[in-house]
């Protein structure tokens, strides 16, 4: 109970960076489950219920594209950055660096 405000803030912070983290991993084609594992290896654990709807949203915004492929007799959906997503990523990185240095000065 004491940790609740702390956890809420952390949740908000993580929610903010998930989009950037996902986009940063999709320079190369990946299917959802491998993406989750890849992010986990980097220390970011994402709930499946958060990731898949997010991938669909990013695709509908034109930042990602996806295609179904049959592998080992079953279909898998692969996601990759679209041209728009590729153009956006460096700008996001720059913004993120700015945020980090600003917060460093503040904290």
């Amino acid at each position, binding site marked *: 109970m004491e940790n609740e405000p702390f956890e809420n803030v952390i949740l908000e912070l993580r929610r903010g960076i998930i989009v950037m983290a996902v986009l940063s991993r999709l320079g190369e084609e990946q*299917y*959802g*489950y491998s993406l989750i594992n890849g992010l986990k290896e980097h220390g970011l654990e994402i709930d*499946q*219920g*958060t990731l*898949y*709807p997010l991938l*669909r949203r990013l695709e509908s915004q034109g930042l990602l594209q996806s295609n*179904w492929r049959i592998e080992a007799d*079953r*279909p*898998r*959906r692969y996601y990759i950055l679209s041209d728009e997503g590729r153009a956006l990523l460096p700008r996001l990185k720059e913004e993120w660096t700015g945020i980090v240095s600003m917060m460093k000065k503040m904290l």
Partner: protein
Amino acid sequence: MSTNLIDTYVSEVGRRLPKKTRADIEAEIRSILQDMLEERSQKTGKPVDDEMTLEVLKSYGAPEKVAATYLGERYLIGPRLYPIFMLVLRIVLVVTGVLAAIGLGIALSQTLGHHSAETIIKAIANFATSIMTALGNIVLIFAILEWALFRAGGKVEVKGLPIEKEWDPRSLTKVSAPNQAKMGETIVEIVGCFAAIVIFNFYPQIIGFTPSLNSVFENGNWSSVTFVPLLSEAFFYYIPYLTLVWASTIILNIVLLRMGHWTTVTRVFVIGLKVINILIAGAMLAGSSLIAATTGALTNALGDAEAARIMMTLLTQGVRVGLWLSIIGGIIDVIRMIYRTVAGSK
């Protein structure tokens, strides 16, 4: 068996999703679950069985929860419409309260001591019914609006509603005096139209004629009081059309309240409403009599044939004059509005 479990789970999620995206999301969830099972099987060195499938499904989450993550937040009345919804609600509650108080007053004055407890209870029940009906209708209208906005993907700009666009404080000074919406007039129109909707749709029976109650006070004979309904069926034929005009006028005035000034769109809307009003008044003039009372009924009520004849003439002519005045006033308003719209667009 494990495939059956997955099929059942996936279709349980799918039936909670919109048809448009259902098949695609179902295929995706099926693929994810198979990935999860494959990984778990490799880790444990065991083949996939029912127990493992159940564990995976449990960790993936309840179907309704999974479906909800794809649907996003849904509102019956969302944050964009909520402030205007509350404004309408407050106005309606106040007006309904006032009308109920008037209704109670009328009911009490008509029974005057007799059965007053019963009258009060009936009035309270009427009040509760009116409030519930009004609330239900308002919520329904706003829920439909919300649904329409949701379908439009929030791309629709509704004048008068808070929208996410850059606001320029300089726009405050751009509103010229003739374009300024008058707060008092706006509220009076909202209250008037709402009262008209409620009275003519829910309490048409209170519009009638009761002769002086003096005789009742003198001899205490209540059975001698006659209530003569004034409006004919021909009048009530127009009520659905009038209700639409009144409801549109309320919506327009709420938009004006929010915006604080007139625009070309709102003026054109008002011109449309005024024209419809003129047409209805014209149809009323040309059609059957709007008065239900007859000289005979009034004679019975008043006990004086001559007075009844005079009253009947006054009523008939009064309605005709009223309708002509509303047509002439409407035409003047339309001309004024057209002039302001043209002048405002220059």
